[in-house]
Each structure stands twice: as structure tokens, then as C-alpha cells.
């Protein structure tokens, strides 16, 4: 994602549900409002759960992008 600065990223590949989601929750808890954070996951369940959580928590899912070597990077902005 050009032009967007990710302040913190966690590579949660190798960790299964609910690991990657918990990593995102931890990142959002410790971030400042406006920060952009990212979690990389190769777990199938994350594809559904992570966007669902971001929606429920009313943050912004900026992008889901494939990562070299397998997995998806979920990029999220903390809105409040």
C-alpha cells in the first residue's frame, strides 16, 4: 500500500485461530487513534473473523493484500 505508513506489523503466520485475531486486537489496543497497523496471517478462519471484528469494533479495514510466501496482510486504521 503506497502512501500509507504502517506503524506496527505482526507476522502471525504459523499461528492458528484465534492467534492472528488476538494479535490485531492487541495491536489496536496499544495503538494511537489514526495509526495504521497490520497483521499477516495464513489461517483460513482469519479471513472471515478479522474483517468481522474490525467492522464490529468500528475501525477501518484499509486493505487485504496477498503476501509473498503465502498469507494475507490485513491493514487496519484505528479510528477511535
Amino acid at each position, binding site marked *: 500500500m503506497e502512501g500509507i505508513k504502517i506503524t506496527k506489523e505482526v507476522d502471525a503466520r504459523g*499461528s492458528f485461530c484465534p492467534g492472528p485475531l488476538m494479535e490485531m486486537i492487541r495491536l489496536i489496543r496499544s495503538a494511537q487513534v489514526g495509526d495504521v497497523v497490520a497483521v499477516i496471517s495464513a489461517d483460513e478462519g482469519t479471513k472471515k473473523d478479522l474483517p468481522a471484528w474490525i467492522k464490529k469494533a468500528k475501525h477501518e479495514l484499509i486493505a487485504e493484500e496477498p503476501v509473498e510466501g503465502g498469507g494475507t496482510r490485513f491493514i487496519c486504521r484505528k479510528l477511535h
Partner: protein
Amino acid sequence: MAKNILILGGGTGGSIVANILARSLSPQEASITVLTASPQHVYQPYQLYIPFGYQDPRKIARSERSLLHRRVSLVVDPVEELDVKNQKVVCRSRKSYPYDYLVIATGSTVDEEQIPGFKEGADHFYTPEAAFVLYEKLQNFNGGTIVVGIGGLPYKCPVAPVEFTFMLEEFLTKRGIRQQSEIIYTFPLNDVFNIKTAADYIKADFDKRNIKTELFFNLAEIHPEKKIAESIEGTELSYDLLVMTPPHKGAPFLRGHEIADADGWVQTDRHSLKVAQLENVWSLGDTTNLPVSKAGSTAHFQAPVIAKQICAAIRQETVDSEKVKYNGHVACFIESGYGKATMLDFDYEHPPQPPPPTEFIHFQKLALNKFYWYLIPKALI
């Protein structure tokens, strides 16, 4: 020269490893020391029964010395520093203890400070003292909203809050105040439990018993004066009684240590249980960062794997890592209330398939509670 084996923590995992080693190795081969924080060994599953008055908090602990083989030395002195490079630990007394082989089994502790308002606003049953306070509150409860939930992942005995919820529903019914009460169960994820098969079973039973759920509820703050629990997702729940599993952490000396993460969960190999790729350090039970339940049964199935590797190392034998490995086995009973229970039995490859609750499984759980002292820490089964 006899090797020096040091076991940190005299709870379920540490006691089993120490007793297996004492029976397997001669005094010429090794000296075995358990270094622990308390002279008492608490049987924590009993804490679930205290809030309902089914168990006396004064009767859930025994002397750790009485549970250990006579060849095991017991030192009560909490560990404050671990130096893996120089193979020694330093305790609160400032005495230091060297080791050739180390087993870390210091368990998990509750950390109420992590959530603002937790101490003043929430009750729980994760220490005997807190469980007794909750007993008094439940005795005086005359109807209203009880919110039960999880205040942070990971926590020990993942099914305990579910068991508590089932038992609470029965308790309120028997006291004749179920109609005037609402039970709301919260969970941090999008389901009622983190294992799908178990979640399906639990959700169906919650629906049958009119137990409401609030999912994706990650506790952020408690406002005791307004009696509101707030999640980071922005949900606010009003309560008359709030029963929340507190956030858990590893022992203080492990938090931020080079072999652990910031919360003190120790980097552990999922099969060999070796720590941070060191050849002479293992960990088990609640201490590890493994994605398996923090449960006594986990420690029980892990202990022999570690003991076998230590014996082989001392005797300079090679171990067949295919045979001597932990496969993720965990077995947990779930009290369902009304004198019945079911069971979760699973490993890394096989998710649990809980059978319908029966009286027989409930009696098995009661029997385990009774015979724990004779069988488990002593490693007789």
C-alpha cells in the same frame, strides 16, 4: 558426578515431572530440586465449586512436601531471575541455584491491574479468596443481571467460565430466582468458545437455558460506580453482578525475558517442549506459549515427555523424537449443572467431539477431584 535437575514451580506440572524423575533416576545419576513460591499445593479446579458453596476454600490445598517423593528436595523461595547463559536462577532470598537441566513450571497468575476498574467492579473464582468473596455475593443475590465472561486471552482452564455459567443457571433456578435474573455470557471472539465443535455444543445449551451471549466482547474497562462493563468494540453492558475471568500472565521473572514474550509465556517447542531451542531447558503446563489449553491435564500429558528426555540426556542415550513427543493432548470435563457433565478430549490433529452430558461423566469428574491428591501429582497415573 550426579547431575543437577532444577524444577521451577511445585504445582501440577512441576510435581509430576519431579516425581517421575525421582522414580526413574538413581541418586548417583541426579539430584532433583523443586523450587517453588508456596509450601502449599492448591487444587485449583475446586475453586469453581466455592462460589456455590459446594466446596470449602480452607480444604482445597495440601502441603507440597507431602506430595513429593522423598528424594526430591523442596525449596520454598520464589524465583526472581533466570540466567540461561550461566545456568542458574536467583531467588527472593538472593540465594542462587545452579542447574544442568531445568524445567519451568511456574504456571500462570491473574493480573487484575491490566483492566481499569477490575478490582473494584468484577468478581471471579481464579483465586480461592476471590471465589469466597463471590460465594458471599451469590448468597445475597436476589435477582438482576449477571454478566459472566472472559477478561483477556489466554486464561487457564478455558471451559471454567462455561462451567460456571451452567452451574449458575442451575443455582439461580434452585434458589427460585431464575425468572428474575438474566445471565449474559461474553467472549472475546465471534463464537462462545475458541474450538468450533465445543462452541456449537455450548451455544446450543445456552439457547436451551435462555443464557444470552455477547460476542466479540474484549473487556476494556469496568465502571464500578455505574455498574457498566465496556468493551474495546464499544459495547456497554449493565450488570448487577459481574463475574469476569481476569487477564493472566506468566511469572514476573519471565515477563520480557529473552526466552519468553512480554507477558511471560515461554517460547516452547510444540512437540519436544524444549525452550527457546536450548538443549537443557523445558517448560510445561500454563507456562508455555503453546496454543493448547492452560489446564492441569495438559501438564499431566506433557510431563512424561520431558522426564523421558531428561533421563535420556543424563544417560547419554538418544531419544526417538517420533515416540517421545507431546501431541497436543488435553482432556477437560465440563460441568453442565443438574448433576451432569460432558468432556472435551482432543489433540493437535483431532478437535473434540463432546458427548451429551451424563451423570456418569459428572461422577468421573467428582472422582478425579477426590483422587487428585493420591494419583496426579504423585504421577501414579
